[in-house]
Structure formats: structure tokens, C-alpha cells
């Protein structure tokens, strides 16, 4: 495209908002602290108050990091039969697929239950701690693109539901022990909404971040 061709429109690009879902174009409006702006066409939230969400999401990310550490360090479930005991936590669950035929599934399990959620909470903590001090964290744009790419692959709530099903599934023939990791996963599941729906790219729009 010719870089010198004049724009096809009369808009000041600093004063318009484009919906990321339906591509609708709107004039930006000033928001009160508790207001959100919704897309009139598709209902997506276009703008929301930011200062509050940074503190709230940082709190969620820090607690998420602690819950995740517990579910990695302590068993999520245990089983015993005839004096033998087995245990499983987030990191050892992919062991089930160590057979070379299934090694791909093992890597998928590592991604969805350890790597994606772990990097997600770590990157959010890092970015938001700097944002609270009105600063742009080192690795800012790189971390934001990582966060965006990993978002759909963090599936700890699926892991939690799977654990609950396994309790019933094997409970009739072995005795099942609920580990501290299971409670930690339940805690993490409560935070998922906050972590998953936080649009980290709003950090770009904070003009005070330098």
C-alpha cells in the first residue's frame, strides 16, 4: 500500500475506540471510576476503569502463585490399596503418559497444568508490581505477547474438575486421599475469572507508565 496516500476517513485516531470482537468504530467517551463502556453492536466491554483492576488483579495473581506452589509441592490426590500408596500432584500427573507413544500428551499436560498457569501468574505479578509504581516492567511488550498467547491454554479448572471425577471413578476399588493440593486448586479456580479476563494490554494505555 502507498504510504503517502491520504487516510480514507476524518477521524482523530486518538479519540476513537474499535471493538476487538466486531470491529465496530466508536468515539471514545470519558468514564466515571465505576463505569464500563460496552459495544452497542456485540456487547463486548470496550473500556473499563483501570486503576482499580490493577490492584485487584495483582492480589489475585499473588494468591494464585501461592495456590499453584502448594499444588506443585503437595499431593492433589493420593490412593492406597493393600498397604501400598500412590500420590499425584500437578507436576507428576503427566508421568502417566511417559510411554513414548504418548509423550506428546505428557507435554500437553505440562503446558496446561504447570507452564501456562505458572507463567501467567508470574508474568502478571511482575508486570503489575511495576505498574503499581507507575513503571513499565523490563520485558514489558514481550511478556504481554506471551500472556496473550498462553491465555487459552491454562486449564487448572479443568484439572480440578478432573480430580473430582477421579475421586468418584476410583473410589469404589481403592481408598482415595484428598491432598492439600486439591484445596489449593479449588482456591486457584476461584481466581481464574479474574486472571483469565484481565486484559493485560490495557497496561499499554496507561500514559503514566514509562
Amino acid at each position, binding site marked *: *500500500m*502507498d*504510504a503517502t*496516500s491520504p*487516510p*480514507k*476517513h476524518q*477521524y482523530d*485516531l486518538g479519540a476513537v*475506540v*474499535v471493538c*476487538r*470482537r*466486531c*470491529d*465496530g*468504530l466508536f468515539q471514545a467517551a470519558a468514564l466515571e471510576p465505576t463505569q464500563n463502556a460496552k459495544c*452497542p*453492536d*456485540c456487547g463486548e466491554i470496550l473500556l473499563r476503569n483501570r486503576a482499580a483492576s490493577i490492584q485487584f488483579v495483582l492480589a489475585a495473581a499473588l494468591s494464585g502463585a501461592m495456590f499453584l506452589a502448594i499444588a506443585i509441592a503437595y499431593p492433589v*490426590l493420593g*490412593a492406597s*490399596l*493393600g498397604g*501400598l500408596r*500412590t500420590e*499425584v500432584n500437578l507436576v*507428576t500427573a503427566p*508421568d*502417566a503418559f511417559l*510411554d513414548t*507413544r*504418548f509423550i506428546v*500428551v505428557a507435554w*500437553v*499436560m505440562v503446558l*496446561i497444568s504447570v507452564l501456562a498457569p505458572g507463567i501467567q501468574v508470574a508474568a502478571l505479578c511482575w508486570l503489575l508490581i511495576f505498574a503499581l509504581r507507575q513503571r513499565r516492567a523490563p520485558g514489558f*511488550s514481550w511478556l*504481554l505477547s506471551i500472556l*496473550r498467547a498462553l491465555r*487459552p*491454554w491454562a*486449564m487448572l479448572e*479443568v*484439572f480440578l*474438575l*478432573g*480430580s473430582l*471425577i*477421579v475421586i*468418584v*471413578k*476410583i473410589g469404589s*476399588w*481403592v481408598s*482415595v486421599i484428598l491432598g492439600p493440593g486439591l484445596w489449593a486448586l479449588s482456591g486457584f479456580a476461584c481466581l481464574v475469572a479474574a486472571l483469565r479476563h484481565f*486484559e493485560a*494490554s490495557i497496561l*499499554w*494505555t496507561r500514559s503514566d507508565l514509562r
Partner: protein
Amino acid sequence: MSARAAALGIALCPVCGQVGDIAMTARCNRCGGVLRLPNARASAERSLAWLLAGIILYVPANLLPVMYVSGIGGEGEDTIFEGIVEFWRSGSIGLAALIFCASVAVPLTKFAGLGILIATSLCGTAAAPLSRARLYRFVEFIGYWSMLDVVVVALTSRLVRFGGFAVAEPRPGILFFCGVVILTMLSAFSFDERCIWAPEHAS
């Protein structure tokens, strides 16, 4: 309905959300992300390729056993559907329904939903954009719950390792099922939602 940004040559940076004029710059001037106008045909074809791959893998995922179990009740290999029937027979009707939703209803809904979205996009229709946008969000939302079966097989075969007493092991069906979930997720992500609203910009 309000104006579409694409009709005016304005594109949203997918990385940082900055608005850019495609006639002036091909890259976002804040973060360097590539600005693209929606291209209905390209997005539908890419999405269709992932979807067809997922549908093909869905056949062995259902025909092959996903887990081998030996224990008090004898030994045997279960496909996904046999696992659901077993829950049903043992009286856990709610759980059977839950697993049926996650491993049968969700993949089939995704095939149908993405199929409709891709077909309407390829036809270039402008009908019912809001319903189709809702359908897309629904498909996007339910997508990853199918991974439930993979987690159940992983946890069961990791826990039930009691030598001669009871053993559970994964079987190849789970590999294909995991593939179905990932391919249909990729299919949903490669479909550009903006095309639902601006079919006339298919180029």
C-alpha cells in the same frame, strides 16, 4: 449498526489494542504488532483446515480404547463411550452426564458451530451477525473443557499403580482425543470474529 473500522481502513492492533490507519502504516506504531484488516476468506479457510483435521482424528479417538484397567472387576480396555456407560451403570448418573457433555457433546457442538460459522463466512452472508457472534463466543468458551478426559486418564493411570492388585494405563485413543481438542481450539482461534460483521470486505 455502527460503522466498521475495516471499511475506513482502520485496524486494531491485536497485541496492544492501539488503533492504526492501515493506509499510513502496516505495523502498530506503539508496539510493532502487525495490523491486518479482516479477510473473511482467509480466516474461514484456515479455520476449516484445522477443523477438518480435528474431525478426522475424532474417529480413532472414539473407536480406540483410551484406558486399560485391571483390578478386582477383571481387566479390560475402555473407549470413551464405554467409560460413560460404566459410570451410568454404577449409578453415578450425574457424572456420566458430565463426562458425556465434556467428551461427546462439546466436540460435536464445536464441529457443528465452527462448521456453521465457516460456511456462512465463505458464503459472504451478512445475516444474523449477533447470533453468529454469540455462537462463536460459546464455541470459544466450551472449547477447553473437552480436555477433561485427558486429565481423568492421566490422574487415574498415575494413581492406580498397585502391581498385581490394580493397574490403569493410557491407551492410544487418548492421544487422538487430545489431538481433537487442540485442533478444534486452533480452529476457533484462527477464525477472525470481525469477519462475522463485515463480510463485504472479503478480498
